[in-house]
C-alpha cells in the first residue's frame, strides 16, 4: 500500500495503482471496523493526489468509488457516513475556491450533496454565493439548473425568481454569456410548464426582457440570439438579419438557420 500510495500521488494517471488499492480494500474490508480504516486511508491518499493534480480523472473516480462503498455498506444514516459526506462537501468548497470552473469537482459535489440529502435551497444558496463572487462563472449557473432538475418539475414561482436572477445579470453585464446560457435552460423549463396560462406568461415576459436589453444594447448579440428562438417567424428573420450584421463571423450559421 505504501508503494501504490507513492505511485498514485505522484502519477495519478497510472490506473494500475488505483486498481491495486481497490483490490486490497475489497480484501481487507471484511469487518465493518476494518473497513472504516481502509476507507479513511483511501480518502486521505486520493486527497493528496487531488491536491497535486485537481483535474485527474482517476483520482476523482477513486474518491467517488470509496464514498459509494461506504454508503452502500454502512447506509446513508450512519454517523460516520454523514460526517464523511460533510467533510467531502467542505473539501469541494475549498477546491472550488481555488478553481471555480473545475468540472470534475462540480460533478463530485452534485454526487455528495445528493447523497447527503442537502436541500435544493441550501445548494442554490451556495451557487448564488459563487455567482456573486464571479458571475462569469458559468459552472455555478449550470449547477443551479442541475440541482433544480434533480428535484423534478420546476414550478412557475421558482422560474420567476430564476428569470429575475438572470435578468439582473443581463442588465449588469449584457456581454457576459453565462447568464444567457442559463436563460436557455429557463426557457426550456418555462415551455414545459403544464398550465398553459403560466407557460405563455413566462415566455412572454422573457421575450419582453430580451427585447428591452436588445434595445438598450444594440451591439450585443446575446439578447438577439435569445429572441431568435422566441419570436414569431417574421420578427425572427429580422433578428437574424441584425445578427448577421453585428456578428459577421457567424453569417454562415445565421444563413443556415434562417
Amino acid at each position: 500500500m505504501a508503494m501504490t500510495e507513492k505511485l498514485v500521488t505522484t502519477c495519478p494517471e497510472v490506473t494500475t495503482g488505483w486498481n491495486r488499492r481497490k483490490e486490497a480494500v475489497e480484501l481487507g474490508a471484511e469487518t465493518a471496523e476494518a473497513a472504516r480504516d481502509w476507507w479513511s486511508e483511501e480518502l486521505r491518499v486520493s486527497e493528496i493526489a487531488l491536491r497535486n493534480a485537481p483535474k485527474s480523472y482517476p483520482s476523482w473516480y477513486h474518491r467517488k468509488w470509496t464514498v459509494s462503498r461506504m454508503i452502500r455498506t454502512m447506509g446513508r444514516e450512519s454517523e460516520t457516513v454523514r460526517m464523511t459526506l460533510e467533510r467531502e462537501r467542505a473539501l469541494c468548497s475549498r477546491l472550488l475556491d481555488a478553481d471555480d470552473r473545475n468540472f470534475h469537482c462540480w460533478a463530485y459535489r452534485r454526487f455528495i450533496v445528493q447523497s447527503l440529502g442537502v436541500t435544493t435551497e441550501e445548494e442554490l444558496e451556495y451557487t448564488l454565493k459563487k455567482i456573486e463572487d464571479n458571475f462569469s462563472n458559468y459552472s455555478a449557473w449550470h449547477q443551479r439548473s442541475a440541482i433544480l432538475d434533480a428535484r423534478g418539475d420546476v414550478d412557475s414561482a421558482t422560474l420567476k425568481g430564476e428569470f429575475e436572477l438572470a435578468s439582473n445579470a443581463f442588465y449588469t453585464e449584457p456581454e457576459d454569456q453565462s447568464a444567457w446560457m442559463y436563460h436557455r435552460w429557463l426557457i426550456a423549463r418555462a415551455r414545459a410548464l403544464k398550465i398553459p396560462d403560466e407557460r405563455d406568461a413566462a415566455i412572454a415576459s422573457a421575450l419582453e426582457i430580451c427585447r428591452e436589453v436588445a434595445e438598450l444594447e444594440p451591439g450585443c448579440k446575446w439578447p438577439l440570439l435569445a429572441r431568435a428562438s422566441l419570436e414569431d417567424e417574421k420578427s425572427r428573420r429580422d433578428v437574424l438579419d441584425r445578427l448577421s450584421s453585428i456578428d459577421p463571423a457567424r453569417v454562415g450559421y445565421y444563413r443556415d438557420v434562417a
Partner: protein
Amino acid sequence: MPSTSASAIEDLAATARELHRDAFARNGSAEPLRGDAHAEYLRGGLGALPQVFVSLDASRAWMAYWCVHGLAVLGRVLDDEVRTRVVGFLDACVDARRGGFGGGPGQMGHLATTYAATAALVTIGGDDAREVIARADVKRFLMSLKEKETGGFRVHEGGEADARGCYAAMASAHMCGCLDNDVRSGVGAYVSRCQTYEGGIGGEPGGEAHGGYTYCGLAACALAGDFGTLDLENLERWLVNRQGEIEGGFSGRTNKLVDGCYSFWQGGCFPLLRRANDVMLLQFMERSKMTVGGRTVVGSDDLGLEARVLGACAATMFTSGAFESSSTPAAFSSGALQGWILDCCQSDNGAGGLRDKPGTGRDHYHTCYCLSGLSLAQHHGRCGLVEVVGPAESNALVEIEPLVNVVKHKYETWMRALT
C-alpha cells in the same frame, strides 16, 4: 482567483487583436506556418520515446500518436529507424492479458491509449504496423468494458464510463475492423443523455457541456451510425458560439478562454455535423421512400454510395463524401480559426511547437491538435474547396479525416486493406 473572469477574456482578446495586427502589418496576411520548426519539435518528442522499457508515464502511447500524426499533417515522412522503433514501442504497449493498449509498456489496457496507439499505427501504415493489432483481442477488450445497461464504455477495468470511452471504443473498433452491433449498440442513447440544454455534450448526464466530450460524443454517434435523440440544431448553436470573434479560436466550454487544442475538438464537429445531417436526411428518405431527382430512393446504391444506408455502417458513407457537393461556407469561420492558430498559437521567437494560447508554453498535445485544427479549417471551411490563409507554400497542410483524426489518405489506405 476566478479562473475565467470577464477581464481575463478581455485581456486575451486584446492580446490576440494585437498579434493579428502585427502579423498583418508584417505579412499582409496571417503568419506563415513554421513547418520545419514544428516538425523538428515533434521529431524530438519521438526521440524522447525511449527504447522499450517499463516506466510510470501513462501518456507515452499518446506521445507517439501526437508526434506521428502531427508530422503526417505537416506532410513529413518518418525515417525508417524511427518508424520501426515506434512500431516496436506500440507493440510493447499491448496489454496481452486484457487485449487493449496501455499508456506504456507493461501498463494496464486503457481505451484512450488504445485509440491513440491504433491511430498512430494507421498513420504509420504497412504490414508490421498491421501485425501489431489483433482484431479479436481488441474486440474482447472493448466488450469487457461495455456497460450493457447504459450502452457506455468504462475507460479501463474498474474505471469510470463517459463520452470519451464511447469515442475511443468506436474509433478503435472502426480502425481495427471490429465495429459490429455488439460494440455499437446503445451508443447513440448513451451520448444523447449527456447532451445538455446548452447544446454541447458533457462527460456524464447532468454535467456541463465540454468541447472534448462534444467531439467524442458526436464522432462516436457518427461511427456507430446512431445519433439517438441528439439535438443537432442546438449542438450547432453551442458550437458556433464557442468561436471567439476577435481571437478566432474556440473555447472548450461556455464562457471559458479560447484554447488552441479546441481548434480540433470543436472545429472537428462541423464536418461531422454536416455529414450527420445528410445521413439523417437520407435515413428519413429511406423510411418515407421519398424521391430524389424524380427517382424513388430505394437504397443508397441509387445514389452511387458504397453501402446501403440502413443497416450499413454509417461510417462507410460518412467517409465516401457522397453528399458534400455544394460549396457553401461552413457555420464556423475557417479564416478566423486559421488566423488564431497561425498568429497566436505558434511559439514565440520562431521556436517550434504550438501552444494553448499566448503566454503559455508549447507541448506536443497542443502541437498535434493545433495542426489538426488548421488542416480541418483549410479543408472543411467550404465544402469541396481548400482555402489556405497565408502563403500556401508554407501553410497548406495534409487533409485529415475528422472522424478519427488521422491523415485522410493514410486512413483510406488502411481501411481498404481491412477486410
